[in-house]
């Protein structure tokens, strides 16, 4: 009788509800910040709708929108990968302080980028004294927020009980580990050069669909994009590798990772040489 009374009531569980709780469970802070950023896209989109101003040939609010989407995907990915951190990591004091500072860095980036859009001025590469101060802070913030990828790589690599197939674990750790160095190489060079366009007009005319990459010259943002998405592409290949060659074979993942590095370097070199990425598109 007692057992019947104490039996938990089963709540109806729908796909979206299950997905939400499974994503939120291991890293609620990154999950909630990611959702908040995605929701922020609604007023930003409306601002793009009503604001007639443009900057370097592109609507003022496209850049904040891109960052909201990109950083939301970034945070939700980390929230998803958090299930493979060693048990108890999220409760540790150092981790809580660290993850809060990652979210704070992202909040700073967004305020800075939205603020610059509202003022109709540049966020990155703003030549005014205040602009340069903000830009240097934003550089530190960008480094801090991207540092979550090697931290996750290290933590997941050290966890012997992830339950992942060896090939998939290797892909996940390698993708996370490569994100920061590749991003530093590409975004760092872009920062040194003071612009993302090489050899073209630097103004978005005909642009690459969705991404808005320049068509009449090199665009360093292409390599930045692929560098930062190593954390997605390489683990995605890991899934395919497990399906094709089995869970224990790690060589395909290693070869793919090497190929991916070569691809990012090639895309980067092409942009530095002033050549557009896939010139036939857009």
């Amino acid at each position, binding site marked *: 009788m007692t057992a019947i009374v104490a039996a938990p009531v089963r709540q109806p569980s729908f796909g979206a509800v299950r997905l939400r709780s499974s994503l939120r469970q291991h890293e609620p802070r990154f999950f909630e910040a990611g959702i908040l950023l995605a929701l922020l896209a*609604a*007023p*930003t*989109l*409306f*601002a793009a*709708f*009503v*604001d007639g*101003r443009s900057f370097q040939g592109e609507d*003022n*609010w496209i850049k904040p929108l891109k960052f909201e989407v990109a950083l939301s995907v970034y945070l939700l990915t980390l929230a998803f990968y958090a299930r493979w951190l060693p048990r108890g990591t999220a409760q540790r004091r150092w981790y809580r302080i660290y993850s809060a500072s990652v979210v704070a860095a992202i909040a700073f980036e967004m305020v800075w980028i*939205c603020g610059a*859009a*509202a*003022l*109709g001025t540049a966020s990155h590469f703003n030549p005014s004294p205040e602009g340069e101060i903000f830009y240097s802070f934003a550089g530190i913030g960008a480094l801090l927020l991207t540092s979550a990828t090697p931290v996750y790589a290290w933590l997941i690599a050290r966890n012997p009980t992830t339950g992942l197939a060896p090939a998939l674990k290797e892909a996940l750790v390698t993708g996370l580990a490569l994100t920061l160095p590749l991003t530093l190489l590409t975004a760092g060079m872009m920062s040194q050069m003071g612009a993302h366009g090489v050899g073209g007009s630097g103004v978005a005319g005909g642009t690459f669909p969705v991404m808005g990459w320049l068509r009449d010259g090199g665009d360093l943002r292409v390599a930045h994009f692929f560098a930062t998405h190593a954390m997605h592409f390489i683990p995605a290949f890991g899934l395919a590798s497990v399906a094709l060659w089995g869970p224990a074979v790690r060589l395909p993942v290693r070869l793919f990772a090497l190929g991916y590095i070569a691809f990012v370097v090639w895309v980067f070199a092409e942009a530095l040489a002033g050549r557009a990425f896939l010139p036939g598109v857009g």
Partner: protein
Amino acid sequence: MSADFLFQVANTGALIGWLVLLGSPLFPAGADRIAGLAIPLLLSVAYAGLILAFWSSGEGGFGSLGEVAQLFQIRELLLAGWIHYLAFDLFVGAWIVRTARAEAVPFYLVVPCLALTFLFGPAGFLAFTSIRAARTGRVAAAHLKGDAS
């Protein structure tokens, strides 16, 4: 997209919300979601978008009546101010309907409060609070569970 067109769209949206509140005894849960949440949220998105896009173009501020008047010289900020009225008045209207339902205030007493809130915002809130005070002998900020008598 012109400010005048957005004004029309926002007014229509708010009006739909008020009609839903008038019909709320027929479908209380749906009315709460539409007039108490969905439409105020849509208006809030529009408001926030207008502020993001136009706040920096306005002069003036909140410091004095003169500054506020200066702020509203920009038509888009004037529109944002109007949408602020629409969103919050509707939100308060929905709160009135929910509170009246929970405290068993008859709907015929709620309707004039809704009309006043629709036209003159705070006057409707004042009327509803007065009706609650007259019925219970006190003024409470929120409905307390198990309080309806």
